[in-house]
């Protein structure tokens, strides 16, 4: 009797046993799974939602109209992942975003695209000086992007450790930075410490240019362009690389979900198993070592290691019992800064939007359109958020995906995506359920100032507050980066000092989300670096 029980238990374990379970089918979880499966591990990905992709997801929210519901453009995704996983063969196509238009409320505009001299002429209408210096700025930023590219590819060393591995890594890091040269080291220091407004004002004087550029310093964070630290976020948005060109932004064919699908197909080609509608309740921990997971429906799935791609709050405070963790870590994660600050408004349109500053069709509709007429405009938008309200005249980053990938909407119809800031998670008055529509109205009102026909062509409106983002994809507070990109929680401090190397105090429990180095955005880098560390542990 006893032996039969044993064999049954053994049998059950055998059937369910994986080498690795990845919690969360977002882009980082999928990248992590693909790398582990490529190395020959038996991998299972568990996604809570019925669709894969996490915040990189395309959904047909309104019949015939496909929305990149949350994240909407691609730049930071690491080219080495594209090659390692052969993503083009699995359907990944990145289409170019051609230009940046800044419409102004007086009917004027600033338009920049890959035609360098044309852009210069347009900038010169606002400031001759800015036009001349524009190229120098790009030149300087090229070196900055190159400087941080190195960091994107390494596991953060522990600066307090005397371990030979850490010392070697620190030495290479120091060598890399000292190799940059004086001028670049100074620029980098400025980027690490200044506000984006101050940093840009060292170069430029015209408002529409400064406003639009400073916006890259606030996207996804709870900072204004005049907040110190926002210059680093500016850099974070510049370190993308498409086909060897830094700072290039693109649009994933089929929306950002197209990228997730390609990674998922690559993972499956290496025999990874992917389950949707499979929310994880708890990570099983026995004797300070993980043994698998329990799903919300009670099913237990066993694995030798578990990797969480969720944000640090969920990874350490929800998926495991914090009592199983050291106090210093629990305390650090509780203080981990993860403010929700942005929302998303997706519109299905019956016709093309007509901009007051540029009526009719044109190349401007195939690029980014930025409602950022000046630094003050954005700073004022931030002021409201600082005191617990959403911005009534927000900063909006618009793209019209159907102009770039016609498959996103029926012919002649369009989808328009608005990334909106600021929308704080915690409202002073009321709650998001009650005020969601009011927020949507504020966005459409703002759009209408620049697109007079917008109200007449809206067929459907999807409004997502940070609360909705948290409810749908699980990101704590709806923070798109899984934690602020502030210097005090980057690199060897992300998510907490001593825990930046993708491991946790629980043996065989790993982290691979944007809450780890090198942070948020569709980079895939945390997923890849974590996988490489796991494989390293496996060899030992």
């Amino acid at each position, binding site marked *: 009797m006893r032996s039969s029980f044993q064999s049954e238990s053994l049998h059950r374990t055998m059937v369910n046993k994986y080498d690795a379970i990845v919690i969360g089918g977002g882009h980082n979880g999928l990248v992590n799974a693909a790398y582990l499966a490529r190395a020959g591990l038996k991998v299972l990905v568990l996604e809570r939602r019925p669709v894969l992709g996490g915040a990189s997801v395309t959904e047909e929210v309104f019949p015939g109209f496909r929305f990149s519901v949350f994240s909407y453009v691609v730049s930071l995704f690491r080219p080495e992942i594209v*090659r390692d996983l052969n993503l083009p063969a699995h359907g990944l*196509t990145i289409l170019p975003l*051609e230009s940046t238009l800044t419409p102004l409320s007086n009917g004027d505009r600033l338009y920049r695209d*890959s*035609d360098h001299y044309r852009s210069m002429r347009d900038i010169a209408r606002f400031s001759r000086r800015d036009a001349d210096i524009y190229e120098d700025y790009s030149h300087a930023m090229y070196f900055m992007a190159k400087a941080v590219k190195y960091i994107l590819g390494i596991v953060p060393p522990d600066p307090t450790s005397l371990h030979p591995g850490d010392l070697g890594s620190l030495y290479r890091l120091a060598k890399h930075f000292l190799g940059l040269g004086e001028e670049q080291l100074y620029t980098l220091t400025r980027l690490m410490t200044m506000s984006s407004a101050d940093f840009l004002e060292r170069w430029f004087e015209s408002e529409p240019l400064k406003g639009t550029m400073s916006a890259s310093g606030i996207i996804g964070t709870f900072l204004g362009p005049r907040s110190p630290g926002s210059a680093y976020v500016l850099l974070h948005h510049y370190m993308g*690389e498409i086909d060897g060109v830094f700072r290039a932004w693109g649009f994933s064919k089929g929306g950002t979900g197209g990228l997730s699908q390609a990674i998922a197909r690559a993972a499956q080609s290496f025999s990874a198993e992917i389950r949707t509608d499979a929310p994880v309740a708890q990570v099983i921990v026995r004797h300070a070592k993980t043994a698998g997971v329990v799903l919300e429906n009670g099913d237990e799935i066993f694995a030798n290691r578990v990797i969480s791609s969720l944000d640090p709050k969920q990874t350490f405070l929800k998926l495991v019992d914090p009592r199983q963790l050291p106090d210093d870590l629990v305390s650090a994660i509780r203080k981990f800064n993860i403010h929700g600050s942005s929302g998303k408004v997706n519109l299905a349109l019956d016709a093309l939007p007509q901009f007051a500053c540029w009526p009719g069709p044109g190349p401007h509709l195939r690029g980014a359109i930025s409602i950022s007429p000046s630094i003050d405009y954005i700073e004022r938008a931030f002021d409201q958020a600082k005191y617990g309200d959403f911005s009534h005249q927000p900063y909006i980053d618009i793209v019209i995906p159907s102009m770039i*990938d*016609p498959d996103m909407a029926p012919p002649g119809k369009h989808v328009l995506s608005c990334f909106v800031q600021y929308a704080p998670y915690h409202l002073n008055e009321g709650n998001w359920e009650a005020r969601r529509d009011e927020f949507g109205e504020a966005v459409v009102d703002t759009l209408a100032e620049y697109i007079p026909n917008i109200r007449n062509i809206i067929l459907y409106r999807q409004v997502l507050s940070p609360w909705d983002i948290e409810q749908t994809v699980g990101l704590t507070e709806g923070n798109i980066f899984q934690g602020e990109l502030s210097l005090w929680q980057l690199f060897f401090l992300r998510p907490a000092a001593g825990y930046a190397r993708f491991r946790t105090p629980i043996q065989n429990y790993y982290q691979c989300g944007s809450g780890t180095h090198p942070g948020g955005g569709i980079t895939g880098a945390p997923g890849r670096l974590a996988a490489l560390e796991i494989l390293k542990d496996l060899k030992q």
Partner: protein
Amino acid sequence: MPIPTPLHPRTAALCESQEWRNWAGYLAAGTYEPTHEREYYAIRNAAALIDVSPLFKYEVNGSDALRLVNRIITRNVARCAVGQVMYSPWCDDLGMVIDDGTIARLEENRFRITAAEPNLAWFQDCGVGLNAQVRDVSEELATLALQGPNARSILLKVVNDANLEGLRYYRFSPGNMGGIPLLISRTGYTGDLGYELWIDPQTAVKVWDKIFEEGEGFGIAPVGIVALDIARIEAGLVMLQVDYISARKALIEEQKSSPFELGLGWTVDLKKEYFIGRKALLAEKRRGSQWNLVGVEVDWTSLEREFSGVNLVPQVVGRASRSAVPVYRDDWQIGHVSSHTFSPILKKYIGIATIESRYAELGSPVEIEITVEYVRRKARATIVRLPFFDPPRKRA
């Protein structure tokens, strides 16, 4: 000085870059916009409209038309039904390729041949003693290529009286566009889903307008030959005077190529009783060919290593290059790459290469010359099958 094509009123108005190329004596847009990027993605992601009117076109008529065409080309055109198109090279007596193009069987005894270079005299000379007339119809037809995944959806909106849904790869059908008659063939030079429209030059502009009107919702863009060049390399399609030299223009024997050496062995029908060059090609078939046309795929890590030596990331993205570079195996030159480009859709650096047959086995490692900051270096590469890019929609 190059002259305008029948579509010049439209192409000139759209050619913002003013970047014109001389294509067979005609003005052809290199790009329409300052960069070719969007035009390239129009081919692969939406729909591209390309003015290919500069192609040379010939019609062969008469009771011996089939016999004449079969004398000229290496494939057996008797197997080509009316309504079908065949791709084939044609050779000189020594089996060396003169040119290549498509042959459409318009009627039982009426064919239309396209060519990259003038071939009237050659075709007429080949027909001496036969009851077949060869006529140069180059100027009687404007040609528009509508290529890309959305090409069919657009045509369905503008063309009546043509069974487009049933039109298979390398077939053609007459059609009607709002009263304008035209011929639609499912052919092209992009390796994608696509069509070529053969139109009376008088009505060509109207056809252009109609396609643009309906094509807007499908992401249509006018596309120049810079973007087309990248697409045709991805499709593994050879280009005369770039990937091979016409036997009529070669200055030395070594410059000539047989169909076998151009990867076109599949077009050589040695079972056919006679065609020009058959005897030589039969002998080559028995003997084996000296050269092979293959694809090469450059190893990115190797490129990165070569460029990181001077602290740069690989500087290979941009336009296709038609400057040949040597290919090595163990420091020994075994051939050359004649066309090469970064493929934006595949994210790989690729090239069409002519390699000594004994080194041309698929999967073989080779090295190709690259230039890094004015210094010649070698990057690792692999010999791969052509085409590089072959989406199912091309034939579906």
